[in-house]
Structure formats: C-alpha cells, structure tokens
C-alpha cells in the first residue's frame, strides 16, 4: 500500500495572536521575523493515521509526505520523514507561492499522479491557518477518487479502508474502496514524536523538488478561483459583568440563570 500524506507548514497556531498583524493593502498576514512555523496539527494527525496503518499492515506500507510551500516548508517534510515517512515531495514554485485552494488542490493532485500508483491519500481535515478545509476534498475531486472526511480512526480492510467519522452528535463508520482520500480530524488521538535515530535517518531520505512545469500544470490550473477581498483581525468586545447575591448560593444561582439566558449553558 502506498500512502501519500498531504502536509502543510503553518505559523504556529499556539503562538499568541497578538504577535500577528495583517497588511490590509496586500491582503496578507504579517508575522514577526523568526515566528515559528510548524506542521499543521491536523496534518500531524494525518501522518499519524498513515503510521498506524503501517503498524497494522506492516512494512509493505510506503508513506510519501507531500507539501506545497516555500523553502521553509522543507522543515515540515523533515519532520514527517523523521516520524517515519519513507520519502517526500516538495512542490516549490514561485507561481504557486500564493496559491488558493483551487490551485493548491491541482498542484497536490498532479504530484500524486506523478508519484504513480497511490492507494490512499491522507490529509488533515483543514489547515490550521485559514481553516478552509477544502483542499483535501478538492484533491479527491480532481483525482476522481472517493473521499471521506473528518476521520477519527482508520484501518485497513479487504480491498479498502474502514473509517470512523466524527459527526456533530456521534460517530459513523464507513468503508471505502481504494484508491481513496480521507481527511483526518484531531479526535484521532495523540501523535507520536520523532526519536533521535529516525531524525538522523531522515536527513538521508529522498526529498524530490517539483515545480509547476514538472507537474505539468496547465495555465487554467494555475488560475485562482477565489479572490480574497478583505483580510482583517476581528474586533473583540469584551464586557465584564459582576453577578452578586446575598449568599454564595444565590450568586451561583443568578450566574447560572445569566449563562442560560446568554445561551452559554443549554
């Protein structure tokens, strides 16, 4: 089984939002120099899902990490390799640096096609920067393979995979034949950490660098289909209200009522 895992390097979502700003003229996020870049946590889950499939099926599972991004994105690939991916593909082209979801999906799909026979594509449910959550499913659409979203568990079954999906009010189990694409949600659970030996080995694993021309992307596939019209940091209005009462019990009762009225408590 050959699994391609789509990963994206994003600004550390755990960093304080206050350090970020936006340039409203160029419609870009401005990060302070040296701001840490990490693998999008949902994509870490996708890689973890691939590694668990290998744990289940055995060494016959080959894992290829694929990313689209600038030079720095290579670090994200190194992390994937140190966690156990066998090789990696870095899609790197000036024409793709500001790719929207449509262009990104075409580039990633082209890379997967170029890799040859891919049985399964795994992606995070969304990237932890803009949280659009459409690239993964777009790749499935372009490749013409079935897709399953919001997976919290995946295991190999005869001829396909069985996926447990997270729903708003429960779980759903589906089976899908391969090839297929599955997006992984954070409910998958804790991800493994790289050890020293694999980190050292990672440096010797192959990383292919492909540009738009090598991927055979056509002009129409490089044309964005969405247009960012405004980028801004929302204003937060914080109001503070003190709930009091003659006794602690009364204060607590009033607080509960207030939260209920504000629909914080159901």
């Amino acid at each position, binding site marked *: 089984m050959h699994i391609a895992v789509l990963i994206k390097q994003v600004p550390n979502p755990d960093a304080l939002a206050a350090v970020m700003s936006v340039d409203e003229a160029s419609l870009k996020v401005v990060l302070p120099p040296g701001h840490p870049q990490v693998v999008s946590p949902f994509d870490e889950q996708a890689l973890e899902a691939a590694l668990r499939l290998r744990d289940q099926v055995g060494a016959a599972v080959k894992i290829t990490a694929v990313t689209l991004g600038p030079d720095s994105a290579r670090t994200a690939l190194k992390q994937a390799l140190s966690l156990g991916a066998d090789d990696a593909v870095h899609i790197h082209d000036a024409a793709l640096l500001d790719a929207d979801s449509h262009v990104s999906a075409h580039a990633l799909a082209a890379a997967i096609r170029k890799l040859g026979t891919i049985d399964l594509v795994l992606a995070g449910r969304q990237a932890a920067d803009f949280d659009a959550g459409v690239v993964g499913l777009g790749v499935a659409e372009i490749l013409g393979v079935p897709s399953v979203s919001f997976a919290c568990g995946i295991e190999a079954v005869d001829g396909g995979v069985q996926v447990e999906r997270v729903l708003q009010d429960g779980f759903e189990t589906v089976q899908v034949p391969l090839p297929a694409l599955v997006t992984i949600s954070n409910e998958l659970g804790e991800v493994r950490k790289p050890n020293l030996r694999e980190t*050292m*080995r990672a440096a*010797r694993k192959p990383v292919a660098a492909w540009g738009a021309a090598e991927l055979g992307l056509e002009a129409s596939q490089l044309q964005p289909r969405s247009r960012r019209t405004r980028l801004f940091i929302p204003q937060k209005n914080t109001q503070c209200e003190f709930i009091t009462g003659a006794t602690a019990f009364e204060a607590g009762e009033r607080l509960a009522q207030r939260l209920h009225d504000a629909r914080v408590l159901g």
Partner: protein
Amino acid sequence: MPKREIEGDWVMGWPDRKRPEIAAGKDADGRVISGRTQILEQEGLITPTNNYYIVTQLDIPEPVHPDDWSLTITGEVERPLTLTIEDLRKLPGRSVRAVTECAGNDEGFFDYEKRGVSKPSRRYVPDFKRRAALKAQGVMPTNDELAGEMGNTCAMSGGEFTGVPLAEVLRRAGLKPGAQWIWMKGFDNGRPDPTMQYRSMGRSDVKVEDPGVINYDKGLPLDKALDPDTLLAWAQNGEWLMHVHGAPLRCIVPGWSGNWWVKWLSHIEVTREMPPCYHQTKYFVYGKSPDDPNKPMLTAMGVRNIITYPLDEDSPLERGSHAIRGLAWSGMGGIAKVEVSVDGGATWNEAHIEEPRERWLWVRWSYLWQVDAPGAYRILARATDVKGRLQPQTPWNYQRKHFDGIVPSDVVVE
C-alpha cells in the same frame, strides 16, 4: 591602563562572569560548520566542549545514529573486522588529554616574522559568519583581501578524549607483515573548498588542484598509529562526542595537528604504501613554494608556546609586579622548560610550570615580573620539550603550517 574587564552574564539564573563565546559560522540551515573561541577567554587546561574550535575541510555530514554506524577494518589484516560502538566500548579503553591544534593556527605570525607585517592579535577571531556566507555564494577571496587578513590565532583547544587505542583495534585485526599505513576514512565528503588553501597560503593566484567530491581521509604511519595514546574516541570532556566534533567516532592523534584527527570515522584500511590522500599529498604539506617538488606531509608539531599576558594590547602597564603567563605544549610529548625574557632576549629566566605536566596537554606557566622603571619592554618566552627541542622548530613553508616561533609581547610600562 586598559584593564581586562570582567564582563557579566546570567548563568543558571545568577549574575556571573561572562562565559567564553564561540564565534561560529553557520550553514543555510543555521547549523554550525566552523568556530573559534578567543584563547584569552579560556581559563585552565580544558576547553569547554561548546568552545572547542571547529574546522572541517569538506561538508559536515548528516549525523548517523550510533546504532546505524559501524567501523570496518580491512586491508592488510589477518581478520577484517566490523565493530559497533558497543563492540569498541568493550575493549580496554583509555582517556587522553591533549591539545588539538589546527595546522594553520597562528599562520599570520609567519608573515610577521618573515615580511614584517603587523603583528596579529590574539584577540582577533575571524568573521566566520561572513566566510560561511561567501562560501555559500562561491565567492573567492582576492590576493589583496588575503594579504589583509590576520590569520588564525584561536584554532587550538585542550580536551580530554575517551576511547580505545587504535593499536588495540589493530591488534585484534592482526596486522599482516608489510603493513605500514593506517588509512583512516571519514563518512564526510565534499569538494575541497579552494579558499581554505588560499587562506593558508595567504594568496589566491595559485592553482589549487580540484579532486572533485571526495571523502576525508588520512594515511597514518604505523608507528604513530601504534602509539597507545592514539585513540579512536567516542567521548570528549566527559560527554559523548558531539556531531560537529566527529561523532560517533573520531581519531585522536596527540601531538599531530588537527587534520590528522579524522572525524566521522567509518573505515580503516591497512596498506603497505602511503595512500593517495588529497589532504596529505596536496594539502597539509611542507614545501618552499607551490612548485616545490619536495612536499613532505605534516607530522608531529614543533614546540608551541604563547604568551597570554601581557599582550601588546594590555599596554600601558602599571609599575609593580605582573605575572607573565602563557601556555606551552609540544608535538612530541611534555614540556621540560619555559624561559622568559623581559629584555628582548638578552637574558632569560626560568618560568614556573604548573602541574599537571601531561604528555600531550598544554601546561600553564608563569613568571613574576617586578618592573619599577617606566619604558618600553619586549617580553619573550621560549619553551623546550622533553625531547630537548627548543622552539622554533618549523621553518616558514608556503602553506604556513605548524608555526611555532617566538612571538614577543611589546608593552609599555608607565
């Protein structure tokens, strides 16, 4: 008087004296590929590992986990061996304290002696960040630039190394009759950077042979290889060897310059003839000029001695007593005597050599100088090693290697 100020630092949460700082060159990924620490910032005999000088002739390789590494011994041996780190650690080990010194350390003093150019300063550390950036861009230095460079003064460090004698490993492999050379090969490779040789020669108008991409290697003569202090080391200064210093295993060749201390060792081949190592036949050789047909390889260093106080920059000195201090070491064993002159070499006085006096480590020496008359003084110090060799031993050579001359401190007393 320009007193050497104690600078402050925060160490473990406490205000403290400043620790020595390594001036490091880094690659595009921010990884250290070269470094020097001012010798004047160090105190005692052992250089902290983080301050140990770093020189590499080829590209620093990606690290290899010890569990993925092994050392092979082949060639003129009865029993070819493949040994893991754990195999090596089961052998009778040995720790050796020794000075590691770059063959080109203090090269600029050759020009000071020979051509009368201004005296290099021991406070000078080359701008390795700039050098690394120029290397990345493939920019070659010009003759004028090189003539203006001061040369290395800080490519020397003292360390304790733990490993197993190379002789022990060779004994287990069993040397065949006729075995003469121990060809040590590292897993680092790359294309030799010609600027290394340009800087060594102080000129860039000489053709430097390009061997293409090679692995670093050296062919050690058998008698030095069998010296019980010649080690295959996996530890330095009480901790596992760092990757930049050659982990998992490097060779320790006490008394011989750093180019012999092959890092990232992965293969040893025993041969009858001297192997054709680039860094033994083209670089790290003596000779009067690039065209000199006689270019013997470098071997043991001469007799080394440096004054660490006072230096020219410490002038003016106050009248009174001053402890003239320095470090001395030899390529052939311990230091027997250090003499100091405060009158430009007219008279000499024996300095006190501090214990311990180890074979391969430098010794600290001092001479208490009482100076009551203002004026200019030329302070000299010269060392004699246990073999009776008095410095200097090494004449000028075109690659400016193994400088061991007597460098005066010219000071003014007010």
